[in-house]
């Protein structure tokens, strides 16, 4: 029995894929946990940017919202939101952008807009926010999502942000020079795009997870890489720092009134 949760494994695997010299466009939730964990472990000089305008921020607790004061207080400086999207994101200054969503397909296109038809949605989701341009402007994209048949679907109801489209050279055909989704990190495994088809295929399986579990939780027929690695289990240091970060965060945000 592992002494860590699958969510911790997912967050730690995501953190490990960040480099010390990355300039990272961070969303709230899992991406925020992963990138701050990276900063507090192997990537102390990583630059974290939140779309609220905070450049090179170093929060001691995770923000509940993208614009918590903590992000501004600990930033190198804070710019306006139009500047953030024009100079920093569209300007090509970001090496890695994090995304997640309600639905993903095998080419890592994401839906965070609607379940069902757009005009008569079964479920109205929050929408794209920064995602449509993050997906195309950042050097590469890491996606963090817990796996389930409901969220890993064969066909999206709506393409909120573009991944590898229909696969192959679809990005190139749209004139995109950025890599798009290079990693899809789940609670079960890590997917990476097949160099040719750009289908997301399993390249690393988390300890104790079976291929059957992955298949059962994926809405398309999963492809496994020729050589599938086992994801190294979280080490004590990673778990300690992640848990401390989460505890500080829980204390700071308090309980519902």
């Amino acid at each position: 029995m592992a002494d860590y949760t699958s969510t911790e494994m997912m967050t730690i695997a995501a953190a490990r894929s960040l480099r010390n010299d990355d300039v990272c466009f961070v969303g709230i939730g899992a991406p925020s946990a992963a990138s701050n964990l990276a900063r507090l472990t192997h990537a102390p000089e990583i630059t974290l940017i939140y779309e609220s305008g905070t450049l090179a921020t170093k929060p001691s607790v995770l923000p509940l919202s993208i614009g918590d004061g903590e992000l501004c207080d600990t930033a190198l400086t804070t710019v306006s939101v139009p500047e953030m999207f024009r100079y920093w994101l569209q300007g090509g200054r970001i090496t890695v952008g994090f995304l997640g969503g309600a639905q993903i397909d095998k080419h890592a296109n994401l839906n965070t807009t609607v379940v069902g038809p757009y005009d008569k949605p079964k479920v109205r989701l929050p929408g794209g926010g920064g995602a449509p341009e993050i997906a195309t402007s950042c050097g590469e994209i890491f996606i963090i999502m817990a796996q389930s048949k409901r969220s890993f679907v064969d066909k999206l109801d709506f393409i909120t942000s573009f991944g590898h489209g229909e696969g192959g050279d679809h990005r190139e055909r749209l004139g995109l020079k950025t890599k798009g989704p290079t990693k899809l990190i789940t609670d079960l495994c890590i997917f990476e795009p097949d160099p040719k088809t750009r289908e997301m295929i399993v390249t690393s399986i988390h300890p104790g997870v079976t291929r059957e579990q992955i298949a059962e939780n994926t809405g398309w027929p999963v492809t496994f890489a020729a050589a599938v690695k086992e994801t190294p289990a979280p080490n004590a240091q990673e778990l300690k720092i992640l848990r401390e970060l989460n505890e500080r965060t829980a204390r700071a945000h308090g309980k519902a009134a």
Partner: protein
Amino acid sequence: MPRIVSLAEAVKANVRDGDTVAMEGFTHLIPHAAGHEIIRQGRKDLTLIRMTPDLIYDQMIGMGCAKKLVFSWGGNPGVGSLHRLRDAVEKGWPKPLEIEEHSHAAMANAYEAGAAGLPCAVFRGYIGADLPKVNPKIKSITCPYTGEKLATVPAHRPDVTVIHALKADREGNVLIEGIVGVQKEAVLAAKRAIVTVEEIVDDLGPRSLNAVVLPAWTVTAVAEVPGGAYPSYAQGYYKRDNAFYKAWDPIARERETFLAWMKANVLDKGPEVFAAHAQRTRAAAE
């Protein structure tokens, strides 16, 4: 020069039924007190523009102020759905809500273009995304030099923009610091602008030579409303009440609990309650 007035007077004089209204503040400095005042004054048929509708528009939509919403991300940050927004979109309660949906980049550029007096914003966006298929306002131009196709959206030109800021001086010059969001652009893009502030001071005091200041002649009305951003926050005054954002989820989930909360906390109250909220949050933060 703006008139320094009460919030009630500012709203009465500047927000009219059927207006296009932008109430901005990117997580920081959301003008909640002004939203409550608009609800109390029973404004209706408003076209509401805001990047992140947040609790402020969830409340205004749930109370029937809006006929249309222009937005880019409609959730309760870090918590989940905006139930009143979903109820209006999915079930038409309390009335059907027309939506015009964009990305953050498009919204930010549309405010920037409005402030710059341009008819449209030009940016690199929506590549491969479905939104242009459902939003006819999203068009494109071709770069005369490279042939690249660039996305366009119409500039935002609200009838009135409402923001909350830190301070104003007695002339009505307004200071914003911290996460400044799109507020400056939203004010400069609008025909009229209402600014609520934490405090009105004799002088804005020592500040950066490049401080974000809205000159008095760009603002129509200024009202002093301490705590006016609560449960959002005001840098240096009080913190975001993250607990209330979580508490809002069960309140807004059912129509009855929502209506009861709005009666007790908005319809039967006035702007003065915000000062108390802010003090409580500040105390808790210390």
